[in-house]
C-alpha cells in the first residue's frame, strides 16, 4: 500500500512539471491558436540559468531563482518578438507550428553548445533529507514544486479573470479580429502570452532541476510530455492541462514500476492515442469556441516557385550530369560517403515534400516511417537471412500499412491535432525501437547489417552505394514530377490551398491525403532501409524525432513543393558537419536557426530562390515572354 502511495507521490512530482509545461501550451494556444513546440525548452533554459547563477556565481537560492526566471522571460520576449509573433501573424498555422519546432531545435542546439552532452543536476532548495510521514518519504523539493505550481496557477487565473490585461488576452483568444478592432494590440498580446508561458516554464525548470537530472535534449522531453499532457487534458483548457499533466506523471511512474522504464514512454503515447481517438478534443472542453476562420483568411500564402519547361529540363540534365561525374573528381576523404547519406536522406525528404509541400499536411514524425523501414529490413536481413531487396520491399509494405493505420486512427482529427498525431507516432516508434530490446538491440542499436544486394550486385562500397542512391533518386524525381504536374498533383495542391473548394470540385479530400501519406511513408521507408544497409548499423537515435525535425529543415531550406529542392537542403545540412569539423557541436542549433530564418525571410527556399532568379533572367529575353498583363 505504501509502495503504491510512493509511486503516486513520484507521479505527482513528475506530473507537476508536465502540468506546468502543459499550462504554457494552453496559454499560448488560447491567444495565438498555435501549439508552441518550443515550450519545453524554457524549462531547460530556466534550469541552466539557475545552474549558472547559483553554482557558478554562488548567488543565494532566491535571487538566483528570480534571476534565472527573469532572464528566461527576457530571452523569450526577444525571441518571441523577432520570430514567433511575426510567424503567427504572417504564416499559415501549419507553418507557424513547424517554426516552433525549429525554435525547439534551436534551443536544444544552444543548450548542447553551452552544456555539452553531460547531464546536470542542482541541489534541492532545502537539503536532501526528505520529510518522513508514517513511513512515506516526501522529498522537500516536491513540496516546493507543488506550492509554487499552485501559486502560479492561482496567479494566472487571477490575471486572466480579474485584470484588464487578462480580459484583453481572453478577447484575443475568442475573436482576434474583433479584439483588434476594439483597439487591442494583438501582436503585443501574442508576445505577452509567449513570454508568460516561457516564464512559467522556466520556473518549472528551476523547481524540477534538483529532482531530475537535465541535459541538452531535456527540452524535447518536456515539450513532448507537456504536449501529451495537454492533448489528454484538452488543448487550451487550463484545468485540463493540470489534470492531464498529473495523470500522465502517475501513469508513467506506474508503467516504469510495473512494466519497464524503457516502456514508460510507449504507454504514455498509447494513452494519448486512445484519448485522441475516443475524445479528439481531450478530456476537458477547451474554453470558448474560437473564430479561427476569420484570421486564416488574412494570411499570406506561401509562394511556390517551380522551374517550367525547357529551363527545368536543362537544369535537371546539368545537375544529373554533374552528380554522375562527381566521383571521378579527386574528392576529399569521406566526402563521397557523406554524399551517399545526403542522397539517401533526400529520398525521404522527397516523400515529405509530397505530403507537406504539395498536400499541405505537416508530419512531425516522419522518421518513424524511416525507423519502420530501417528496422524491418535490417531484422529480416540479419535474423532471417532474407535477401536485402526482398527485405526492403516487405519493410516498405509494412510502412505503408502503418501509414494506413495512422490515417484510419486519426481520421477524426483536424488541423494541429493531425500534425501532432504524427509527432506521437514518431515518438511511439522511437520508444518501441528502444523498448523492444530483443528485436532492435535497444538503445545501443542493431549491428551487423549486411550490404545491400540486388540482381547479383553487392553495393558494398561508398561508390556503388552512391550510384545506387543517385539512380533511385533520379527515377523517383522523374516519377513524382509526372504525378505532381498532372491531375494527382493538382488535386494535392487544391487540398493544400482550400479543402472546401477542392471538395466542391469532386476531390475526395480524405482519400487524397491518405494517398499522399502512403507515398511519403513508402519513400521514408525506402530511405530508412538504404540507410541501414549503407551503415551496417541502426540505432533509435538515427531515426528519432530530431531526425524528423532535421528532414523538415532540409525540405524548408531547399524549398517546399519543388521536389528537387529537398536535395539542396539535404546536401547542405549533411555536408556542413563533414566539411567543417568544429561545426558538429553547432549542427543542431544551426538546423533550428535555419528552419526559423528560412521560414521568415526566404519561404521559397534555396531552390525557389534559384528558380526565381532563372525565371527573371528568362523574362529579360523577350522571346520567352508568355503574355502581358491585361
Amino acid at each position, binding site marked *: 500500500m505504501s509502495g503504491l502511495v510512493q509511486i503516486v507521490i513520484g507521479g505527482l512530482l513528475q506530473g507537476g512539471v508536465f502540468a506546468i509545461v502543459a499550462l504554457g501550451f494552453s496559454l499560448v494556444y488560447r491567444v495565438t491558436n498555435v501549439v508552441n513546440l518550443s515550450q519545453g525548452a524554457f524549462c531547460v533554459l530556466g534550469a541552466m540559468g539557475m545552474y549558472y547563477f547559483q553554482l557558478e556565481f554562488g548567488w543565494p537560492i532566491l535571487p538566483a531563482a528570480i534571476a534565472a526566471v527573469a532572464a528566461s522571460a527576457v530571452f523569450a520576449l526577444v525571441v518571441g518578438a523577432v520570430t514567433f509573433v511575426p510567424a503567427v501573424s504572417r504564416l499559415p498555422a501549419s507553418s507557424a507550428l513547424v517554426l516552433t519546432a525549429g525554435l525547439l531545435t534551436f534551443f536544444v542546439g544552444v543548450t548542447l553548445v553551452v552544456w555539452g552532452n553531460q547531464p546536470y543536476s542542482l541541489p534541492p532548495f532545502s537539503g536532501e533529507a526528505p520529510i518522513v510521514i508514517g513511513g512515506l518519504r516526501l522529498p522537500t523539493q516536491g513540496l516546493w514544486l507543488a506550492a509554487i505550481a499552485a501559486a502560479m496557477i492561482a496567479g494566472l487565473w487571477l490575471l486572466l479573470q480579474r485584470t484588464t490585461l487578462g480580459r484583453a488576452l481572453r478577447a484575443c483568444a475568442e475573436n482576434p479580429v474583433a479584439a483588434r478592432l476594439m483597439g487591442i494590440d494583438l501582436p503585443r498580446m501574442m508576445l505577452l502570452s509567449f513570454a508568460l508561458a516561457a516564464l512559467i516554464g522556466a520556473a518549472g525548470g528551476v523547481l524540477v532541476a534538483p529532482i531530475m537530472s537535465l541535459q541538452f535534449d531535456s527540452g524535447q522531453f518536456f515539450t513532448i510530455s507537456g504536449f501529451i499532457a495537454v492533448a489528454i487534458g484538452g488543448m487550451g483548457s487550463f484545468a485540463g492541462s493540470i489534470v492531464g499533466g498529473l495523470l500522465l506523471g502517475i501513469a508513467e511512474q506506474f508503467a516504469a514500476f510495473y512494466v519497464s522504464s524503457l516502456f514508460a514512454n510507449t504507454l504514455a503515447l498509447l494513452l494519448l492515442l486512445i484519448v485522441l481517438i475516443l475524445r479528439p478534443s481531450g478530456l476537458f472542453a477547451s474554453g470558448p469556441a474560437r473564430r479561427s476562420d476569420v484570421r486564416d483568411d488574412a494570411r499570406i500564402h506561401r*509562394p511556390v516557385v517551380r522551374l517550367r519547361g525547357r529551363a527545368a529540363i536543362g537544369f535537371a540534365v546539368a545537375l544529373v550530369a554533374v552528380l554522375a561525374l562527381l566521383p571521378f573528381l579527386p574528392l576529399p576523404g569521406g566526402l563521397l560517403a557523406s554524399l551517399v547519406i545526403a542522397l539517401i536522406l533526400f529520398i525521404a525528404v522527397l516523400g515529405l515534400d509530397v505530403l507537406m509541400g504539395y498536400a499541405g499536411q505537416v508530419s512531425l514524425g516522419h522518421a518513424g516511417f524511416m525507423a519502420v523501414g530501417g528496422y524491418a529490413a535490417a531484422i529480416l536481413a540479419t535474423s532471417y537471412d532474407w535477401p536485402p531487396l526482398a527485405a526492403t520491399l516487405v519493410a516498405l509494405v509494412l510502412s505503408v500499412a502503418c501509414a494506413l493505420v495512422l490515417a484510419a486512427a486519426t481520421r477524426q482529427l483536424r488541423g494541429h491535432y493531425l500534425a501532432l498525431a504524427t509527432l506521437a507516432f514518431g515518438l511511439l516508434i522511437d520508444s518501441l525501437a528502444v523498448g523492444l530490446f530483443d528485436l532492435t538491440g535497444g538503445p545501443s542499436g542493431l549491428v551487423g547489417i549486411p550490404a545491400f544486394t540486388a540482381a547479383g550486385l553487392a553495393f558494398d562500397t561508398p561508390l556503388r552505394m552512391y550510384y545506387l542512391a543517385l539512380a533511385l533518386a533520379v527515377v523517383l524525381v522523374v516519377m513524382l514530377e*509526372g504525378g505532381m504536374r*498532372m491531375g494527382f498533383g493538382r*488535386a494535392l495542391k487544391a487540398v493544400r490551398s482550400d479543402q472546401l*473548394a477542392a471538395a466542391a470540385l469532386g476531390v475526395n479530400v480524405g482519400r487524397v491525403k491518405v*494517398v499522399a501519406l502512403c507515398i511519403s511513408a513508402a519513400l521514408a521507408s525506402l530511405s530508412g532501409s538504404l540507410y541501414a544497409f549503407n551503415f551496417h548499423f541502426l540505432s533509435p537515435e538515427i531515426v528519432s524525432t530530431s531526425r524528423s525535425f532535421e528532414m523538415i529543415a532540409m525540405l524548408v531550406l531547399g524549398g517546399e513543393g519543388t521536389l528537387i529542392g529537398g536535395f539542396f537542403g539535404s546536401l547542405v545540412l549533411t555536408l556542413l558537419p563533414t566539411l567543417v569539423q568544429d561545426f558538429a557541436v553547432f549542427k543542431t542549433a544551426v538546423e533550428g536557426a535555419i528552419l526559423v530564418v528560412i521560414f521568415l525571410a526566404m519561404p521559397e527556399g534555396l531552390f525557389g530562390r534559384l528558380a526565381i532568379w532563372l525565371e527573371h533572367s528568362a523574362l529579360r529575353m523577350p522571346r520567352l515572354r508568355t503574355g502581358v498583363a491585361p
Partner: protein
Amino acid sequence: MTNALECRAVSKSFAGVRAVEDVSFAVRDGSLCALIGPNGAGKTTLFNMATNLFPPSSGDVLFFGRSAAGRSPHQIAADGVIRTFQTARVFPGMTTLENVLAGAHLHVRAGPLSQMLWARTAREEERRLTAKADALLEMVGLRDARDRATADLPIGAQKLVEVVRALMAGPKLLLLDEPAAGLNDRETAELAALLRAICDAGTTILVVEHNMTLVMGVADQVFVLDAGRLIASGSPEAIQDDRAVIEAYLGREQGPEQRPMS
C-alpha cells in the same frame, strides 16, 4: 420534365435562430433560375445545405430526383452538381491554367501511378484537358492570365476563373453564389451573357444574387427568400410587380423600418 434541384420543406436552425424555414421549390432541368432576397434572407444557408456543407434540420434536398442526404460534398460534385462560393475561392498557390484544370478533377481517368510512369494515356488526357481549359479561358477573355498566379488577378477576374473552373467540371447543375458581387456594370452584363450561353448549351443554372440587373435580364424563373421563408416565385416580370417582394426589399409603405435595396 425532371427537376435538376428540388427542395422539399427544408428548414435550418442555428442555435435557435431559424435561418431557413420550410422552403420548397424546384429548378427545372435546363432552366436558368435565380434565388434572390435581402441580406440575411438565408440564401447562402440554403446553398450550403444543398451541397451538404451542413445537413438541413429537417426536409430533403434532391438532385435529379436523388436525395442529397448523407452524401459528402465531393460525392455531390461527382453527381454533376458543382458550386462556386460567395467570396471567390480560387486556389491561391496555382496559376490560372492550373486553377481551371483543377476543375477537371472528376474527368481525370489516369490514376496517380500511370501519371508517375508518364503513361501515354495520362499525357494525352493531360493535353486534351489543357486544350479544353485554354479554349474556355479564350472564350471568357482570360487567355493573358493563363500563366499568372490567379491570386494576383483583380477580383472580377478571379470570380470569372471560379466560374470557368466550375464549367471545366462539366456540371449538369451549376450553383453560383453571388457571381456578380464586386463586378462593375460592364462585367455584369458580360457575365449575364455568359450564363445565358452556358444554359443554352445544356447546363442548368441556379444563381444566388443581389444584383437585380443580372437576375432580371437572364433568369427564366426567380425565387424570392425573405427572413428564411420563400415569399414568391415566378417569372422576373411577375416578381417585379409582386407586393410581398416589394415590401421585403423596400419595406411596408409608411412602415417605420426601411430596408434599402441592395
